[in-house]
């Protein structure tokens, strides 16, 4: 039923696009280019002197770096191609390479864009728009987007940040009443995790599709620019190898941006159907098969304030950041169980930071973060997960 609704919404969006009065892509006398390189990068020192992994071993301080060029090509006024590749060093000093996205935009008319290829899913705001280090006001990610360092005590809610498929985006301008943004897409979808414990949803980098089923999703947002934007996202797809187990996720995001301050946040949840079998009453026979829900829910809120509001010239480059994330997961409504490592957790993460802006797109960040797992018996429960960061991030 949910799929049918999404399919109907996509068809409606396309139909409305076709009904829109088509204005010519107006040509200009401006200089027209063909290629541009943009992107971002960072170098981060992480101090984690008291941090230990689940076996009690020390986790070393380290320095990591990233260089993430974005290649932009303008084939014509209607066709634009973009690709982002991330080169990074990990904690072991090895170089890692990952294709973040590679796609083509077709500007169908004044307010409709069709995108095909690998793209960042319009699901919430952080994954799609806010994660680049010079844009992300903090050094780390909100807790619900995963550990990304530390001892991994706080598993992320989802891995559905980028995928391959096709999307249609529309902008509906309502004049003084604001505007509505819609995005609908179909992509190859989540995969089943390899393993012998039943296999949950793969949270690592995807390797490709594993079944004949496509995933569907979309985001509808209302914006009253320049200050407000509120969006609702939904995603659903079959993730198991035989296509009989569903993964779905929702997200509600909001952004308020003022002249000196901003407040952002997301409420985020996912449900993965998980199958198993009860213990057989008679040895050698199969037990009763079951399908139960593995739920993860969380939220974060982030506030920033620019000290230039105080009118002192020496304070102009300084910005303060605080972010709180909360996450909990349960299996079939129960916190306590041993089905999966990340199941049955209640955790939180708080980040305090001070940023010194060197340029509009270059910032030196000093931040401290503490992650805690609150329920006894959970993986990493009671283990110190505190970090101090120093990061130089730049956009170019």
């Amino acid at each position: 039923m949910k799929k049918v609704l999404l399919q109907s919404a996509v068809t409606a969006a396309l139909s409305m696009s076709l009904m829109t009065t088509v204005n010519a892509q107006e040509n200009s006398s401006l200089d027209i280019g063909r290629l541009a390189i943009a992107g971002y990068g960072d170098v981060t020192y992480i101090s984690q002197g008291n941090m230990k992994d689940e076996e009690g071993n020390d986790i070393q301080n380290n320095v990591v770096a990233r260089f993430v060029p974005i290649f932009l090509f303008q084939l014509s006024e209607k066709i634009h191609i973009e690709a982002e590749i991330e080169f990074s060093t990990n904690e072991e000093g090895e170089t890692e390479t990952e294709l973040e996205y590679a796609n083509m935009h077709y500007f169908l008319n004044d307010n409709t864009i069709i995108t095909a290829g690998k793209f960042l899913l319009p699901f919430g705001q952080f994954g799609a728009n806010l994660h680049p280090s010079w844009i992300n006001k903090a050094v780390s990610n909100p807790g619900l987007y995963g550990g990304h360092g530390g001892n991994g005590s706080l598993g992320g809610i989802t891995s559905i940040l980028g995928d391959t498929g096709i999307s249609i985006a529309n902008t509906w301008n309502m004049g003084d009443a604001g505007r509505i943004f819609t995005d609908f897409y179909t992509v190859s979808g989540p995969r089943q995790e390899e393993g012998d414990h039943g296999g949950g949803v793969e949270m690592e980098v995807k390797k490709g599709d594993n079944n004949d089923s496509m995933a569907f999703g979309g985001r509808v947002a209302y914006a009253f620019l320049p200050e407000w934007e509120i969006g609702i996202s939904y995603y659903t797809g079959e993730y198991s190898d035989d296509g009989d187990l569903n993964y779905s996720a929702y997200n509600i995001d909001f952004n308020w941006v003022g002249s000196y301050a901003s407040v952002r946040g997301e409420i985020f949840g996912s449900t993965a159907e998980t199958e198993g079998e009860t213990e057989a009453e008679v040895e050698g026979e199969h037990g009763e098969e079951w399908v139960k829900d593995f739920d993860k829910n969380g939220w974060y809120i982030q506030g920033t304030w620019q000290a230039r509001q105080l009118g002192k010239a020496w304070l102009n480059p300084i910005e303060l950041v605080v972010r709180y994330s909360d996450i909990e997961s349960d299996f079939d409504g129960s916190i306590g169980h041993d089905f999966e490592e990340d199941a049955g957790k209640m955790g939180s993460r708080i980040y305090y930071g001070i940023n010194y802006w060197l340029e509009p797109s270059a910032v030196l960040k000093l931040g401290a973060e503490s992650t805690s797992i609150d329920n006894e018996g959970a993986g990493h429960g009671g283990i110190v997960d505190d970090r101090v960061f120093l990061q130089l991030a730049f956009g170019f």
Partner: protein
Amino acid sequence: MKLVKLLLPLITLTISAFSVPAQHLSDASLVAKGAKVYGENCARCHNARPAEEYSKKEWSVVIPHMRAKAHMTGKESLAVEAFLASTLTADVRNTPSHESADAPKRTGAELVTQFGCQGCHQLKGEGGTLGPVLDDVISDKGEAFVLQKLIDPKFNNAASAMPKYPMTKEDIAAIIEFLKQ
């Protein structure tokens, strides 16, 4: 798969149906509109970036990327492109010079409109909120501060997104006189 099968013919038909001849752009208010769109959209995710970070040709390629990211319409992204291009000259430093003898004199009000100042600043209750209100900026900050800010927008804040406009010294004097009123 059914959806893809459904969409592909529609998209193919649509692409072929929307071959529209290009028109030449000559809207005088485009720069002001672009400044407004720039002020309203860039800071939704990140600090607004000054025009001088890319060349005109680079902006013409970067803006379509941002159009998709920010859900701007085609007309809006073209206006932003026009606004950014209006602040860039062959002299990347945009060093203020004296007016050439044959250039028409422009009033402060005309210059504020031409450069799209109200895309980011409020003036008499109208304008954006990315930058500070300009009504009392001369009395609050002093004429010397505003003069220096127009010559070098980053002199007091390295992270300022204010473009370094291609102004003459006469332009700057006219804007200051206008802001005094």
